């Protein structure tokens, strides 16, 4: 397995055979986009050759139009393909992230790599096997039904000497076979052939914990990241962002960098950058360049007034997707009504390294190397920005410094392309830390209100959950349109936010239930450092922090055990089983709430429950916390997580993915908040935007994988994220008797709340 588009096993054959060039960033200028070469059918989803290739040695290439962001979904795709084709896993090389060789399946998006992307790969591999058996049949003089395959060798059942290999049947040639395609691109893309894929009971590779080969390249310091791409003659660039949000450059004193070798200013409308031949010179020039900016404006409310601003803001859109019964009437007639409001701040992707991209824009074609998790969309955005048709632009994904949604990578790709066009040279852009944290699209701030009506017996007769906040898409989920990037917005593409929010995803059956949201306008229309965009599990942790905290508040109000309360209203047996699995593994027993034995010393202990669903994946968890009365520190000592994502492809990879979700979400719950004043974002580094450090990592994360081999695989890259925040808040309440309804749950907030209690 290799993350490089093509491995050293690459070969080149002419005349109707597969033609694949060795793809090393910087080494290749040819082979563009969807141009057929050497008889290859066009790179469209309705061609089997767009998905599967069998090489002369019988090895297999699978062309995957989604991406792995480090959790190993490419390994899982290899397992799926190996199973369907009946070849050893080691024979399968998954190619991904290069627009020249993969169809746009949406990139990394919504935890759908396996859920959506894997489906087409499974169909394609099954179809390839069907065609290969059809070809083998006359050669072996035996009907297809009498053939069997073992590691790419087709033989006659009962006569193993009558055999032929995949390599002999088709190696190095194209299938030239059409698939049925639903005419969609991105996540919904689906293509299938005539073959019926195997039954889960027939899988032998799926279900194994095959490790990621690329891990070794990483730990020996050999993996090439996008930051390491070098192209002959490239310039290094650094961009300059306005010191206060919303203002633009007025004058630029180019003499201020005249002492720096080769450094010069590149400006296009309000976009300002410096370039130099050496990276350090570009860094120095960006620091030294004197720019006067338009008078400071004050687009933001004072930070302490953020939630008041949201409460009072006008509404750009409103929806109530869940609306059952008559909530208002039921609330009016209720014996008792419970209400609570929760708040979640802006958060940053704060990727490990600032985004980087390299672009080489020529008169009639362009190449961009990007860490974007959606290279096909990066290609489209670059093409529009520089005025080339998309098929003349090739985007190659090279692993970046983390991703987690629409981070700063998409902006860097278009910055690099614009600068390459303006300079006529290949350009490498990497942001500095303050741009990575200060100027990435942010996870949106919002307020969330719960109201529950109870009858005299403590039954829930009405449930109302309403959010109000910034849309999650001031910029779209990808950079396919320059309006959704800083380079575009600074050079005349007006932004156009999409009004979209989120409601809780769960299976509580309340007789009268309403869940809805309202969105408010952005604080600054154009090139805002507080523009919102997708951050890992967009609005998932935000919404479910509130909804699952509120469920616990209702349970507490009626004196119910939090697990028993949830099970009373969750009738869906699959959901209930996950709730029960987490409780059982954690040894959950009924007892009063908050914890009567929380501890008399400085450390109080408590446990909290939480349960959520995300696009078919169900997660329930117990968090056990220690709260230090003196410092206010909350330590999530132990998590017990039950996780049901249907069929499990790679159990160990799944466990590690869940761990990453839990720890990153723990960081967002306890530490993360974008700070700002009236003029600018103030969270610009790891001091002003702290994240979890290893001292605060749990002692243990115990994971129960609920296996459902009969059910289609659903996603795992995000679902456990949304379950964490309320588990912590609920455990904190159990430990202290104090309810905290605002994230992050910092030591200062805990101390203040304890002092008030």
């Amino acid at each position, binding site marked *: 397995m290799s993350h490089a588009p093509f491995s050293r096993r690459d070969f080149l054959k002419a005349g109707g055979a597969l033609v694949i060039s060795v793809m090393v960033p910087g080494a290749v200028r040819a082979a563009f986009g969807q141009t057929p070469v050497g008889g290859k059918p066009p790179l469209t989803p309705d061609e089997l050759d767009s998905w599967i290739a069998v090489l002369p040695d019988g090895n297999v290439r699978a062309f995957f139009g989604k991406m792995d962001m480090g959790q190993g979904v490419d390994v899982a795709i290899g397992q799926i393909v190996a199973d369907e084709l009946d070849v050893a896993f080691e024979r399968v090389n998954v190619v991904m992230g290069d627009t020249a060789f993969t169809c746009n399946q949406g990139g990394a998006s919504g935890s759908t790599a396996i859920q959506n992307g894997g489906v087409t790969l499974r169909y394609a591999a099954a179809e390839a096997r069907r065609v290969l058996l059809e070809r083998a049949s006359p050669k072996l003089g035996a009907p297809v039904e009498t053939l069997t395959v073992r590691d790419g060798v087709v033989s006659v059942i009962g006569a193993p000497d009558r055999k032929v290999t995949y390599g002999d049947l088709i190696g190095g040639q194209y299938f030239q076979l059409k698939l049925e395609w639903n005419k969609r691109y991105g996540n919904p893309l689906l293509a299938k052939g005539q073959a019926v894929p195997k039954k889960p009971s027939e899988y032998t590779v799926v279900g194994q914990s095959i490790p990621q080969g690329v891990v070794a390249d990483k730990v020996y310091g050999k993996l090439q990241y996008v930051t390491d791409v070098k192209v002959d003659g490239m310039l290094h660039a650094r961009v300059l962002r306005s010191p206060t949000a919303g203002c633009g450059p007025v004058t630029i004193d180019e003499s201020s960098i005249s002492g720096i070798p080769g450094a010069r200013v590149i400006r296009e409308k309000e976009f300002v950058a410096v370039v130099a031949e050496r990276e350090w010179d570009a860094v120095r020039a960006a620091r030294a360049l004197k720019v006067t900016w338009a008078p400071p404006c004050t687009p933001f409310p004072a930070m302490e007034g953020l939630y008041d601003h949201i409460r009072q803001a006008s509404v750009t859109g409103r929806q109530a997707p869940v609306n059952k019964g008559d909530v208002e009437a039921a609330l009016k007639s209720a014996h008792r009504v419970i209400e609570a409001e929760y708040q979640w701040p802006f958060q940053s992707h704060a990727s490990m390294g600032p985004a980087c991209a390299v672009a080489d824009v020529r008169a009639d074609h362009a190449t961009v190397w990007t860490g974007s998790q959606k290279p096909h969309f990066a290609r489209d955005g670059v093409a529009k920005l520089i005025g080339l048709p998309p098929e003349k632009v090739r985007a190659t994904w090279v692993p970046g410094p983390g991703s987690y949604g629409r981070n700063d990578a998409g902006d860097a790709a278009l910055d690099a392309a614009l600068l390459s066009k303006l300079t006529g040279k290949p350009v490498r852009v990497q942001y500095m830390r303050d741009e990575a944290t200060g100027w990435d699209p942010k996870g949106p701030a919002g307020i969330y209100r719960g109201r529950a009506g109870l009858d005299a017996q403590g039954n829930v007769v009405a449930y109302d959950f309403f959010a109000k906040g910034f849309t999650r898409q001031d910029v779209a989920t990808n950079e396919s349109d320059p309006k959704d990037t800083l380079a575009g917005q600074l050079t005349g593409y007006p932004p156009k936010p999409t009004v979209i929010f989120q409601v809780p995803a769960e299976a509580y059956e309340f007789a009268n239930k309403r869940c809805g949201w309202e969105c408010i306008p952005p604080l600054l229309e154009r090139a805002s450092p507080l523009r919102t965009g997708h951050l890992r599990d967009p609005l998932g942790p935000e919404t479910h922090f509130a909804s699952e905290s509120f469920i616990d508040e209702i349970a507490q109000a009626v004196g119910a055990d939090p697990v028993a309360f949830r099970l009373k209203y969750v009738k869906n047996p699959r959901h209930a089983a996950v709730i029960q699995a987490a409780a059982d593994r954690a040894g959950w027993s009924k007892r009063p709430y908050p914890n009567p034995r929380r501890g008399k010393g400085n450390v109080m202990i408590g446990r909290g429950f939480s349960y959520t669903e995300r696009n078919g994946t169900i997660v329930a968890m117990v968090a056990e916390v220690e709260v230090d009365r003196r410092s206010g520190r909350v330590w999530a000592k132990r998590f017990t997580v039950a996780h049901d994502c249907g069929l499990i492809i790679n159990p160990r990879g799944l466990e*590690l993915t869940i761990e990453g979700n839990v720890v990153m979400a723990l960081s967002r719950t306890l530490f993360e908040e974008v700070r700002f004043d009236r003029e600018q974002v103030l969270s610009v580094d790891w001091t002003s935007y702290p994240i979890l450090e290893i001292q605060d990592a749990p002692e243990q994360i115990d994971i129960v994988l609920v296996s459902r081999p009969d059910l289609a695989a659903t996603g795992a890259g995000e679902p456990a994220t949304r379950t964490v925040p309320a588990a912590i808040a609920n455990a904190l309440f159990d430990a202290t008797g104090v309810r905290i309804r605002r994230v992050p749950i910092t030591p200062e907030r805990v101390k203040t709340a304890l002092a008030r209690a």
Partner: protein
Amino acid sequence: MSERIRLVVDGKSTEVSADPAMPLLYALRSELGLDNPKFGCGLAQCGACTVQVDGRPTRSCVTPVGGVKGKKITTLNGLGSPARPHPLQTAYIAEQVPQCGYCLSGWMLTAAALLRDTPKPSDRQIRQALAGVKCRCGTHMAILRAVKRAAGSKA
């Protein structure tokens, strides 16, 4: 203001021509083409640029190259190789630690120094030694397992 500066990197003696005030990170990456130390923050806050200088974990993004003349610099690449892996590298592969992996220099070169000085560290000692190193993917649990595995005291 450029001068010739001799460096010993991963066992090889080499020379760069650079402003002595330039951070070591840029000398390694731009002048010597050693890409495995990464730019994370430029502020010594994250660890992605870590190298060992005479055995001490050092943030190369804020270390002037002129200050390490003739000193022994070890990058992640120099810690071990598939043929002769450092125990941490073996453990990291066994535990499948990294996700994006961009942070590895900080964690591994810091932990390698810990294990050299404290071959059997406690959980607390490991956490203390690794304070200040960042990982955004949340692989901390696997990091702890790998360091303990490398120390022969698997959790």
